[in-house]
């Protein structure tokens, strides 16, 4: 019976993992890149100089908004922080449904003309929407995350020697053995991370997947729920009496005094009206929970109206889960560890997929021609595992190489990404096999390794300038890309130099076995 249960779990692990593996790989890889979303965004807008945090940019932003959007019922200002963020403002024309947005120069407050780019947000949104209609993408990713949870738990049950093989990695012991060792080690050692990230990932979108509880408790008043969870307040009513806004600097000082750091976001409601309210939200870098703490000030006198602090238990739990998933609280070191664990997760999914193909290829080598299923899995493996990193680096290259004033430039960067990925897929279908794997890993390696060179040729914020200036968003992106390029290059080199020998060996062994 025990054997039966294990086998059953093994079956569950293999199929739940295989069916959603390719999407999971993409979700893991783009999600891992999203830990450095701000840095990638900064890298992709090299015209924007890193800004010093402080009260001055906020004051300038308010001046600009008073000039350009005096009738907006609300402004949102997101000031730069020490991670090199940008000074971004949002406003809404009366009657318009959506917010308009602009990036301002923190030194002058003027809107900056910068190259159009989605920046790191592209990877971030791809991570949970797959560049589909949001509803479809989120449901698919949620389904895959659920399957991932199933695969993790069945994987633990089915892993017979989880403690005995805890430190075991035997490279060069035959493809099946080594891949299985790697798959196990990556899975087991980063297990806390895998469980946490999958589970909290489901929580981030729980409101969408299971809206019924909220519908019942709030009688369909979604906004009330959002206000409770996110600590946002309903828009105040306009009094229709013009009145000047209070100076912002003392309010920023008050927020800094209370929180030990400047706010991460400033909302101004009904600016220029007697009903004006200014609300500051604490930056989410200081505690794990992503539930915001806010201070609300009277917009005319500058007096503190209210301070919303700790949320109720359920909202606090959700806040911690959400915060853990995004890792925004993390110090550079911890973000590095999250990044490493994310890479481990990506590699775990990849080794699992490769393992399935290797096993079945082995089986088919005995029975003759590979079936359609195996060929499909192999093509998808190649297109995803080697094609996606190539396309992701290609996205960064497109950012530098596309003409600056191209119409729909941001859209073209995305098109380049998908074009490269489609080419990788085409190669996977037309020329399956190790040579194509090596070619694609090689291409990704070159794109990664040469990214600092490209940056040197196209901007003046290359490593020689960014490293001495301590410009970590620029230098870090260059260096991490080059490091990953090195890793991918090693993989390509291994594929070229080691694989044929081993294949020939295995072929000879098989031939001998068949002859006997």
């Amino acid at each position, binding site marked *: 019976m025990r054997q039966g249960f294990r086998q059953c779990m093994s079956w569950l692990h293999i199929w739940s993992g295989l069916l959603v593996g390719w999407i999971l790989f993409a979700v893991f890889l783009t999600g891992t890149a999203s830990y450095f979303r701000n840095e990638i965004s900064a890298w992709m807008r090299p015209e924007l100089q890193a800004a010093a945090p402080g009260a001055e940019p906020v004051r300038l932003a308010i001046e600009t908004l008073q000039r350009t959007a005096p009738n907006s019922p609300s402004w949102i200002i997101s000031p730069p922080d020490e991670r090199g963020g940008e000074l971004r403002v949002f406003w809404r024309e009366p009657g318009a449904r959506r917010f308009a947005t602009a990036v301002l120069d923190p030194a002058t407050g003027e809107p900056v003309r910068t190259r159009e780019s989605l920046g790191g947000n592209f990877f971030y949104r791809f991570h949970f929407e797959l560049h589909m209609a949001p509803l479809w993408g989120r449901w698919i990713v949620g389904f895959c995350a659920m399957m991932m949870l199933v695969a993790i738990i069945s994987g633990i049950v089915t892993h017979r020697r989880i403690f005995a093989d805890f430190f075991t*990695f035997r*490279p060069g012991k035959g493809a099946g053995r080594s891949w299985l060792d790697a798959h196990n080690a990556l899975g087991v050692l980063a297990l*806390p991370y895998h469980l946490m990230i999958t589970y909290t990932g489901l929580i981030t979108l729980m409101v969408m997947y299971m809206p019924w509880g909220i519908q019942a408790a709030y009688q369909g008043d979604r906004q009330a729920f959002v206000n409770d969870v996110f600590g946002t307040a309903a828009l105040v009513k306009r009094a229709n009496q013009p009145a000047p806004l209070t100076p912002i600097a003392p309010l920023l000082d008050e927020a800094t005094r209370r929180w030990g750091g400047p706010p991460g976001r400033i909302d101004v409601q009904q600016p220029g009206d007697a009903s004006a309210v200014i609300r500051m939200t604490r930056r989410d870098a200081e505690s794990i929970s992503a539930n915001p703490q806010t201070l609300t000030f009277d917009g005319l006198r500058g007096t503190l109206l209210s301070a919303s602090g700790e949320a109720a238990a359920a909202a606090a739990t959700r806040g911690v889960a959400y915060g853990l998933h995004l890792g925004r*609280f993390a*110090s550079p*070191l911890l973000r590095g560890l999250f990044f*490493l*664990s994310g890479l481990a997760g990506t590699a775990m999914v990849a080794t699992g997929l490769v393992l399935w193909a290797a096993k079945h290829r082995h089986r088919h080598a005995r029975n003759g021609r590979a079936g359609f299923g195996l060929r499909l899995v192999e093509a998808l493996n190649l297109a995803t595992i080697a094609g996606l990193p190539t396309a992701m680096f290609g996205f960064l290259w497109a950012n530098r190489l596309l003409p600056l004033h191209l119409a729909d430039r941001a859209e073209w960067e995305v098109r380049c990404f998908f074009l490269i990925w489609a080419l990788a897929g085409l190669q996977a279908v037309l020329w399956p096999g190790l040579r194509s794997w090596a070619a694609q890993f090689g291409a990704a390696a070159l794109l990664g390794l040469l990214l600092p060179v490209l940056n040197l040729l196209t901007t003046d914020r290359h490593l020689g300038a960014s490293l001495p200036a301590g410009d970590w968003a620029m230098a870090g992106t260059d260096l991490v890309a080059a490091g990953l390029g090195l890793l991918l290059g090693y993989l390509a080199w291994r594929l070229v130099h080691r694989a044929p020998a081993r294949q020939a060996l295995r072929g000879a062994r098989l031939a001998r076995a068949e002859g006997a």
Partner: protein
Amino acid sequence: MALLGFGLAYAGFLGLSLAMDRHHAELLGGRPATARRRLLRGLGWGLLGLSLLPCLALWGTGIGLVSWLGLLTAAGLGLILLIPYAPRLALWLGPLLPLAGLLAWPILVA
């Protein structure tokens, strides 16, 4: 102090791995006697437990625990890679990493 936490976690994992026949043979040669196996295992768990302390001191309970798990993952994966490719280095890093962590403590207070 993060380096100290990492070093202790690495040394702890090294101790636990040396308590196993296969890895003892790979790194030191031969099978460990029962007493030695017990000692290594105790030492390993002890060091793993100790590695939590610098994390808690540095980051507080919440972030400290999360960082500790991250450091454990990094230390474990590092050890697993080193055992087949550079077994001597794997062994030497056991005492060297915590030592470096102790020495770096006053310099890098962070």
